[in-house]
C-alpha cells in the first residue's frame, strides 16, 4: 500500500513536469492559429460556369503556352526546366494537372492577379516583377474568360494522382526530397558515369541559385520535414504560409484539401518510412516485457515471503 502511495506521488510529479515543459511551455511559444480550412476566404467567389472549349482557345490566345507546356494537349514546354529557371527564377509548371491540384476559385484569382493571390506580393515590385503577369483579358468579361480557362484546365486534369506525383507537381519545382532521390528537376535519373552525375548535379545547383535569387531564400529539402513539423502544422502552413511564418517567401499555392493530404502522405512515407515497423514492433517488445515483469514479480514474491 505504501509503495502504491509513493508510486502515486512519483507519477503526479512526473506528469506535472511533463505537462509544464511540453504542452504548457509550447503553448506559450506559439500563438494560436486557426487550422486550415482550404476555403481561401479572402478571395471572392467568381461564379461563372466556364466553357472548356472556349478556355482551350483562350489559353493559346492569352499567351499562356509561351511559358507553360501542356503535355496532355501535346503542347511541350517552350524551354527545359533549368533554362526556364534562369529566365524566371523557377520553372513554370506544366498545366496538364493543375486542374486536379488546385482549388478552382484560387486558380481563377491566381490567373488574374498572381503575386497577390500567392500572398507574397511584398517580395516583388516594378524592379523585380513577379515572373507571371496577371491576365488582362482578351476583350470580354475577364471573370468569365478566366472561368473558361479554369474549366478547360479542369477538363484535361487527371481524375486521380499518386501521392508522389502530386508532391512533385505541386511542390517539386522549389523543394527537393533527397532521401527519395527527388530534386527540383524531378526524379533523379540513373547515371551511367560520374561525368553524367556531376553534370546533373551542376544543373540542380544552378537551378537552386536561380531559386535563391527569385525567392531570396533556398527552399528547404523536405525529406524529413514530417519529423520537424506536425501534420496539422504542415496543413495550416500549406493552406496559408503567412499565418505561421509572416513574411516568408513560400507562396500560398492553393492546393485543395485532397492534394494537401496527398502531399503530406508522401512526405510521411519518406520522412517517417519506418512508422509501420515501429508501431508493430514496439507493442511486441512491450508484450514480452509484461510477461517478463509478471515472472519477475512471482519470483520476487517467492523470495520475499521467506524474509518477511
Amino acid at each position, binding site marked *: 500500500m*505504501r*509503495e502504491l502511495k*509513493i*508510486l502515486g506521488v*512519483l507519477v503526479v*510529479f*512526473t506528469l*506535472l*513536469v*511533463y505537462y*509544464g*515543459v*511540453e504542452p*504548457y*511551455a509550447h503553448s*506559450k*511559444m506559439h500563438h494560436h492559429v486557426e487550422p486550415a480550412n482550404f476555403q481561401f476566404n479572402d478571395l471572392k467567389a467568381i461564379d461563372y460556369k466556364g466553357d472548356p472549349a472556349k478556355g482551350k482557345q483562350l489559353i493559346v490566345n492569352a499567351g499562356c503556352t509561351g511559358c507553360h507546356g501542356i503535355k496532355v494537349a501535346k503542347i511541350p514546354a517552350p524551354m527545359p526546366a533549368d533554362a526556364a529557371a534562369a529566365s524566371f527564377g523557377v520553372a513554370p509548371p506544366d498545366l496538364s494537372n493543375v486542374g486536379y491540384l488546385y482549388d478552382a476559385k484560387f486558380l481563377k484569382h491566381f490567373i488574374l492577379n498572381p503575386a497577390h493571390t500567392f500572398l507574397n506580393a511584398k517580395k516583388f515590385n516594378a524592379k523585380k516583377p513577379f515572373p507571371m503577369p496577371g491576365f488582362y483579358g482578351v476583350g470580354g468579361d475577364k471573370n468569365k474568360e478566366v472561368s473558361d480557362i479554369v474549366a478547360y484546365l479542369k477538363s484535361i486534369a487527371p481524375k486521380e494522382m499518386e501521392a508522389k506525383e502530386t508532391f512533385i507537381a505541386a511542390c517539386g519545382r522549389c523543394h527537393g526530397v533527397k*532521401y527519395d532521390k527527388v530534386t527540383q528537376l524531378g526524379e533523379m535519373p540513373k547515371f551511367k558515369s560520374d561525368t553524367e552525375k556531376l553534370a546533373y548535379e551542376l544543373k540542380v545547383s544552378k537551378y537552386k541559385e536561380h531559386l535563391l535569387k527569385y525567392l531570396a531564400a533556398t527552399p*528547404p529539402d523536405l*525529406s*524529413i*520535414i514530417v*519529423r*520537424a*513539423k*506536425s501534420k496539422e502544422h504542415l496543413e495550416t502552413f500549406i493552406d496559408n504560409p503567412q499565418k505561421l511564418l509572416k513574411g516568408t517567401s513560400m507562396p500560398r499555392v492553393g492546393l485543395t484539401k485532397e492534394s494537401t493530404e496527398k502531399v503530406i502522405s508522401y512526405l510521411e512515407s519518406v520522412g517517417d*518510412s*519506418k512508422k509501420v*515497423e*515501429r*508501431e508493430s*514492433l*514496439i*507493442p511486441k*517488445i*512491450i508484450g514480452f*516485457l*509484461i510477461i*517478463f*515483469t509478471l515472472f*519477475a*514479480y512471482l*519470483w*520476487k514474491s517467492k*523470495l*520475499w515471503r*521467506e*524474509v*518477511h
Partner: protein
Amino acid sequence: MMAEIRKAKGIMDWLDQRLATETLTKVLMTEYWIPKNINFLWAMGVILTTMFGILFISGLFLLMYYKPDTKLAFDSVNYTIMQEVYYGWLWRHMHAVAASVVFLVIYIHMFVAIYYGSYKKGREMIWISGMLLFVLFSAAGFSGYMLPWGQMSYWAAQVITNLFGAIPFIGPDLVVWIRGNFFVSDPTLTRFFMLHVLLFPIIIIAAIVFHFYSLRIPHVNNQEGEHFDFDEEAEKYKAGKKKESKVIPFWPVFLSKDLFVVGVFLIFYFYLVGFNYEFAMDPINFEPANYMKTPTHIYPEWYFLWSYEVLRGFFFPIAGLKPFTLGLLGFAIANIVFFILPWLDRSPVVAPAHKRGAFNIWFWLMLIDMIGLAVYGKVPPNGVYVLGGTDITPWFGFTFTVGFFILLFIALPMITIRERKRAGGAK
C-alpha cells in the same frame, strides 16, 4: 606464493582455484547485505545501471554508422541510421529516449536521497560520487545532443560554449579552445564526438564503479534511517533467521525485486520509445543545422531547464552586477551547489523527511521550486504574461531563482541547525 592447484571437480572449481570466484560471488552478490526495510525507490540505482547499459549498447550500434563530419552527420543519422540500416531507427530512438529518461531517474534518485537523508553521517562520499555522475551524464547528454547536427544541436552548442567567454581574462581564448575554431563548426563537432564516445563513457564507467564502492563501508540507508550493526544482522541471516534479520543479500533477494521494478520501468520506457518520443527527440532538431537561421526559441533539453532558468532568471542589475554576470554566477553555483548539500544540512538526524517537521516543508518547496524553474526555463522570457500593461513574465523565473538560493543557502542551514539543537547535538 602460488596457491596449490588440485585436479578440478568441475568448471566452477577450476575457476575458483584460479580466480577465487566463490569468494568474489560472496563479496559482490550473495553476502553483500542490503537493509530489508526499503521500498521500490531503492531500485533506482539498478534502473540507472540498466539504462546506462542500454545507452552503451545502443550507442555502439549507432557508432557503426554515424559520421562525425558537419557535411555528413545529419544524413548519417536521419537517413542511414533512421531509414537504411535494419532497425537503426530502434537503436536511435532507444538511445535518445534513454538519454532523456535517465535524467528523470537520476532526479528521482537524488530526491530520494534528500528525502531519506542518505547523504550524511558517513554517506557523504556516496552523495558526492553520485553528484559527479550527474555532472558526467550532463556532459555526455550535452555532447551527444550535438552529434545529429540539427538546428538545436548547433544553436545549443553556440549558446553554451559562448558562456565560457564570460570567465575573466581567459574567457574569449577559452571559447576558441573549446570550439577548436572561432565559431561552432566541424572541429567542434569532431571533438565533442570524441568526448561523447570515448572520454565521457570511460570516466562514467569509472565513476559508477566508484559510486558502487562508496556504498560498501557506510552501507545502504533504509526507510526509517535506522542505524544497526550490519555484521550482526548478516550473521542472523546466515544462521537461517531470515525473517528476524534486518538485512537481505544483494543476490538474489534484493535484485529479484529490482528486476520486477526494472520490468515495470522498461514497459514505460518502450512505450515512450515507440509512441511518445518527441520530448526527447525535439522536432526542431530534425531540421539541419543552419548558422544563418537562428531558431525563434532556443532552449535546452528538459533536464537542463532548471539551471538554464537560473542563468537567465536575473534581468536587472543588483549591487552593480550586470544581469548576465549574475545569471552566469548563479548558473555556475547551481551546477555545483548540490555537491556541498551534506554540509548545508547542519543536522545529524537521518530520518525520512515526513518525520523531520520543517525539513519536510523545505523538501517539497525545493522540489516545487525546481519544477517551477524547469517550466519557466522553457517558457519564453518575455511577453507571455502581461498584467495591467506591464510584462511580468521575467518575474516568475526571477522568483524561482531567488527562491532556489534562499532555500539552499538560508532556509536549509537554519532549519537543520534548529533540528540539531533540538536533537541535543548528538544522535
